[in-house]
């Protein structure tokens, strides 16, 4: 595969762009593979990529029922941060954030990582204490964050109303190296790199069943027939419960809708990401000028990728209070994704009751930021059969044993 570079752009500009190659191939499935990954979202593709890059396992297929990146990976609001409270979360999210810093060079694909800074507003005394605690925890974990004053909040984001009537801004947790990335490009970049390593990305192919013998997976039944494998990785986010059921086990996960929306494009007016968890809304501005907006999840089990309108109303009401200048903006598009929520709001990267079957799920409302780190940890788990230090705490049995990685207090809302 030809590398992308400034010279390639110049060369193609001179020959009417006739020389670009396809970014990935679309092969028919082989009879069997060393490893199959179900789900070509960011996490599935990153798992495959690091299986090849870090562990030399390249006879791999990634099986996707729709199109690659068409699940939550292509539907999220792209916030990247690592200012979590618990040590095991901070470790994997910070690994991920730091991989994002050089991901474009690593993949030879511009993922447009933009470390513009992420600010989480404290609008109640409870939140002030919570974020101060997180800032201290982050200092011990080696994650660079700080608790800042309302004046500094206003300097960093002048369009913010810091003395709102209901919830004045009392401070904020600020992570200067957090930011955003281009969601599609992350999926496409990993897909191109996987394809280049000789892996097969099989799209429009739904996994319908998991075949096993003596407690080991032998392959998957798909809409393109049976495909055998020595190891299976299930990385299907909102559909994790479904696919786990095919493999014969139940997950502590529920599927609910999470929505987002974007406004008409306007001139640059904010160059950071702001999250307001008390009022349930967050916002950033895309390179195209659209305000990218999200809020909390809907409150019932749902697989329709469609949320309830009143949640959008709630989110916008909160954001108009926080950013009065957006009150007259028109909203252009709104959509939903099905997110996989666990009881402690932390992910699952785990072995399963089937010896050679592994699962990565439960990223819920906040897994875009985790794609590189999660792929790294999942690949290690699949290659060695045992979790490395990044994944060790995230097994699915922690719920039975009461070893929660409780992040629901730290991030009551999305992402």
């Amino acid at each position, binding site marked *: 595969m030809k590398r992308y570079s400034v010279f390639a752009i110049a060369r193609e500009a001179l020959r009417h762009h006739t020389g670009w190659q396809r970014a990935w191939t679309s092969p028919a499935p082989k009879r069997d593979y060393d490893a199959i990954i179900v789900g070509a979202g960011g996490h599935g593709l990153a798992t495959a990529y690091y299986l090849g890059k870090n562990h030399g396992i390249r006879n791999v297929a990634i099986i996707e029922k729709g199109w690659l990146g068409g699940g939550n990976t292509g539907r999220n609001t792209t916030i990247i941060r690592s200012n979590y409270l618990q040590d095991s979360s901070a470790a994997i999210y910070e690994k991920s954030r730091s991989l994002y810093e050089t991901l474009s060079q690593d993949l030879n694909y511009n993922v447009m990582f933009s470390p513009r800074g992420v600010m989480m507003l404290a609008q109640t005394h409870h939140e002030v204490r919570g974020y101060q605690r997180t800032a201290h925890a982050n200092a011990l974990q080696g994650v660079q964050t700080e608790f800042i004053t309302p004046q500094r909040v206003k300097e960093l984001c002048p369009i913010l109303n810091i003395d709102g009537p209901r919830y004045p801004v009392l401070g904020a947790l600020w992570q200067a190296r957090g930011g955003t990335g281009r969601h599609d490009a992350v999926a496409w970049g990993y897909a191109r790199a996987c394809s280049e390593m000789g892996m097969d990305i099989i799209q429009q192919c739904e996994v319908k069943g998991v075949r096993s013998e003596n407690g080991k997976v032998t392959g998957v039944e798909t809409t393109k027939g049976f495909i055998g494998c020595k190891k299976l990785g299930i990385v299907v986010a909102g559909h994790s419960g479904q696919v786990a059921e095919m493999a014969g086990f*139940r997950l502590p996960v529920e599927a609910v809708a999470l929505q987002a929306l974007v406004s008409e494009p306007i001139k640059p007016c904010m160059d950071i990401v702001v999250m307001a968890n008390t009022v349930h809304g967050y916002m950033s501005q895309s390179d195209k000028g659209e305000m990218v907006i999200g809020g909390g999840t809907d*409150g019932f089990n749902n697989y*329709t990728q469609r949320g309830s309108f009143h949640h959008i109303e709630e989110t916008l009401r909160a954001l108009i209070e926080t950013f009065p200048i957006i009150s007259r903006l028109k909203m252009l598009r709104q959509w939903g994704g099905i997110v996989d929520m666990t009881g402690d709001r932390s992910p699952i990267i785990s072995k399963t009751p089937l010896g050679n079957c592994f699962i990565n799920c439960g990223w819920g409302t906040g897994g875009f930021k985790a794609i590189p780190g999660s792929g790294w940890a999942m690949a290690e788990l699949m290659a060695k059969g045992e979790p490395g230090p990044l994944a060790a705490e995230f097994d699915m049995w922690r*719920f039975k044993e009461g070893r929660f990685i409780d992040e629901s207090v730290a991030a009551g809302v999305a992402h």
Partner: protein
Amino acid sequence: MLLLECPYCGVKAEETELSPGYEAHLKRFGPGSTDEEFEAYMFARKNPKGVHFERWRHSYGCGKWFLAARCTATLEVFGTYPAQVGEPPADIIEKIKARRPDWKGYK
């Protein structure tokens, strides 16, 4: 928008009048249960893509909890019923079977 009929006051309530309460007919486990039972009760919720039984509260109406049978893949509502029952009533089961012949049934 989701419309559910409150079985107590007969109002066809829209979602903004209601609060969702997740899985219905939960069997509760407490001290003395096994880890598996307690985990299943606390975390391993049914999460079907299809027929689901759940709790709803008519919070901006009569304030009472009721139960609903709903499809999570289409948002179709099969029926609602009062909460004072241990499992779904027969007429609701019949209605679901008529609409979903391949439904595996309530377990």
